C-alpha cells in the first residue's frame, strides 16, 4: 500500500464523516431540544437529493438544485413537524419510532410515485469537476474536497449559530430547561418548528451533495440514518461536538478499515480468504467500535448533561 492510497482513503473517510455530521447534527439537535427520535431524518436526506437532482435536470444548474434541496428539505421538515411531529413530543419513544417509521413508508412510496422506481443521476457542477494532485502523486476529485470544505463551513456556522446568536441562545435554553424557555417568553412551538426545519435542511444538503457521487434513489437515506445513529451514540446524544467527532471517527475508521483490514489479514490467511474475511470484518468494524465505546462510556464520549 502506498502513501498516496492511504491519503486518498483518509480523505474519503473525512468526506464520509462530514456527510454523517450533517445528518447527525440535525438528529442530535432535534433530540437535544425536543427529546424526539426521528427515524424519518433519512427521508429528508432523500428529499434533498431528489429535489437537487430534479431541479438540476430541469434548469441545468447544480447550484439551483442545491438551493432547492435546502428549501425542499426544510419545507418538508417544517410540514411534518406541524402535522405530525409536534404531536409526538410528549409521547413515549415507542410512539415516536413508529410514527416516524410510518413517515418513512409514506416518503419512500410517495417519492416512488412521483419519480418512479429508477434512480436519478446528478452531475458534478463544472466548477468542481476535475482533480487535484495530492502529495505522493495521486489525483483527488475536487468535488469531494469541496464536500469536506462545505461540511467544515457548516460545522463552523452551527458553532456560531448556537454559541453567538439569539436563536442559538434559545436553543441552548431549550436543551437545558423547557419550562424556563417558555417563561422567558419565547414561542416554543415556533422554535421547535425552526429547529426541526434546520435539521431537515442539513439532512437535505447532505443528500444533495452525495447525490452527485452516487445515484439518487428511494431508500438511500436509511443506511446513512443508521450510521448517523451510530455517530450520535458514540458522540453522546444531544451533543453537537460529540456528533462532529463521532462522525469523523466513524467516517475514517469505516473507510480505513475497509482498506487496511483485508491487508492486515493477509498476515494470517491466504490472500483470497483474507480478502473475504477482511471485507466482512470491515463491514462490522464501526459497530464493534461502538460496542467498545459503550462498554466504557454508556452515554457516549460527550454525554449531554440532561439526556
Amino acid at each position: 500500500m502506498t502513501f498516496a492510497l492511504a491519503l486518498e482513503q483518509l480523505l474519503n473517510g473525512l468526506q464520509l464523516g462530514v456527510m454523517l455530521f450533517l445528518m447527525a447534527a440535525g438528529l442530535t439537535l432535534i433530540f437535544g431540544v425536543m427529546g424526539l427520535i426521528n427515524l424519518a431524518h433519512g427521508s429528508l436526506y432523500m428529499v434533498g437529493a431528489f429535489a437537487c437532482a430534479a431541479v438540476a435536470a430541469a434548469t441545468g444548474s447544480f447550484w439551483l438544485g442545491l438551493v432547492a434541496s435546502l428549501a425542499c428539505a426544510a419545507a418538508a421538515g417544517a410540514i411534518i413537524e406541524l402535522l405530525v411531529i409536534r404531536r409526538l413530543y410528549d409521547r413515549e419513544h415507542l410512539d415516536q419510532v413508529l410514527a416516524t417509521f410510518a413517515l418513512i413508508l409514506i416518503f419512500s412510496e410517495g417519492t416512488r410515485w412521483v419519480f418512479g422506481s429508477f434512480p436519478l443521476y446528478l452531475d458534478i457542477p463544472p466548477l468542481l469537476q476535475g482533480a487535484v494532485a495530492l502529495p505522493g502523486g495521486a489525483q483527488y476529485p475536487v468535488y469531494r474536497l469541496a464536500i469536506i470544505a462545505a461540511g467544515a463551513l457548516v460545522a463552523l456556522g452551527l458553532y456560531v449559530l448556537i454559541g453567538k446568536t439569539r436563536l442559538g441562545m434559545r436553543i441552548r435554553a431549550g436543551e437545558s430547561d423547557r419550562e424556563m424557555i417558555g417563561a422567558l417568553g419565547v414561542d416554543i412551538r415556533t422554535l421547535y418548528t425552526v429547529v426541526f426545519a434546520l435539521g431537515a435542511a442539513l439532512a437535505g444538503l447532505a443528500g444533495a451533495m452525495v447525490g452527485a457521487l452516487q445515484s439518487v434513489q428511494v431508500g438511500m437515506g436509511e443506511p446513512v440514518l443508521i450510521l448517523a445513529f451510530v455517530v450520535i451514540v458514540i458522540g453522546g446524544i444531544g451533543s453537537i461536538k460529540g456528533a462532529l467527532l463521532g462522525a469523523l471517527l466513524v467516517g475514517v475508521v469505516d473507510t480505513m478499515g475497509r482498506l487496511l483490514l483485508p491487508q492486515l489479514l493477509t498476515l494470517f490467511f491466504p490472500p483470497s480468504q483474507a480478502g473475504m474475511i477482511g471485507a466482512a470484518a470491515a463491514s462490522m468494524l464501526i459497530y464493534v467500535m461502538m460496542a467498545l465505546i459503550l462498554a466504557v462510556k454508556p452515554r457516549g464520549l460527550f454525554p449531554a448533561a440532561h439526556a
Partner: protein
Amino acid sequence: MLSRESLINILLAVLLLAVPLAANAYGEPFYVTLATRVAILALAATGLNLALGLGGLVSFGHAAFFGIGGYAAGILATHGFSGDPLFFGLSGTNQMPVIWLVAMVAAGLVGLLIGAISLRTSGVYFIMITLAFAQMVYYFAISWPAYGGEDGLSILVRNQFPGVNTMRPVNFFLICYVALMAALGLFVLIRSSRFGTALQAARQNEVRVATVGIAPYRIRLTAFALSAAMTGLAGALFADLNRFVSPSMLSWHMSGELIVLIILGGTGRLFGPLAGAALFVIFEYVLGGLTERWQFFLGLILLGTVLFARGGLLGLLAGKARHG
C-alpha cells in the same frame, strides 16, 4: 366468565385455524400460505412482545434474530442437502426439530451478546443501538459470500418433520400454528410468573424493582435472550415457508415491521402480535392487489394508529388492557 378480550382471542385463534383448513378443503393453497405467513409473523412478533410488551424494551433490531434463525435453517439445510460437513466435522441436517433448536440457540446467544451491551443503556440509546447491531449483522450477511451474500440462499427442498409431509402446505401451516400456540402459551406462563412480574415491574418502575432487591439488568437480559430465541424460531420457519433466506430478513425494515405488527394489534396484549400480523398480511394482500404503492397507505394507517388509536385493533375491540 371470560373477559371480552379472551373471547376475541379465542375467536382469532379459531379463525387462524379454520380459514386455511377451509381453503385447503376447497383447493385454495394460496390462502393456506397466506395464513402460514400470518402465523410465522405472529410468532416472530410474539417473541418481540416478550421484550417490548412485557419488558418495555423497544428493540429496533429484532430482524437480526429473525434473520439468524432463517440463516440457521438455510445453512443447515444446504449442508444437509449437499452432504458437505459444516464445521468441526459437524454435518448439516434437514430435520426441522434440530434446525429449530439450532436457530433458537443461535439467536438466543446473539441476543444475549447484543442485549448485554445494549441493556447497559436505555431509552433512545437502546433503540438506536439495537438498530445498529442488527445493521451490523445485515452487513455481515451481505459481505460474507459463502452463503449467497447479497443474493441470499435457496433451500431446495423444504425441511422435514418426523412423520409429516411438510411439502403439503396445510401440514406446514399446522406445524407453524402449533408453534405459535405454544409460544403464546409460554408467553402467558411467563407473564404471570415471578419472572414476568419482575420484568413487567421493571418496565413500570425500574427503581421500585431495584429497591425490593431485584437487579433489573439480569431480568431484562434474560427476557431479551428469550425473546431473541423465539423470534429466531420464527425466522427458521419463515425460511422454510419461502424456501429462501436473504439479507432482507435482517434488514432494519423487517425490525420496523415486527414492531408495527405489535402496535397494529395492540401493545402489551397477548394476541396483539397475531391480530397485528393478520391485519398486516390482509393489508398487504388487499391493498397490494389494488396498488403497487400499498406501503404508502400502510404508512398512513400506521400513522393514524399511533396518533389516534393507540390501543391498536384489540384496543378498539376489547377496551383497555387489564393487569393483575
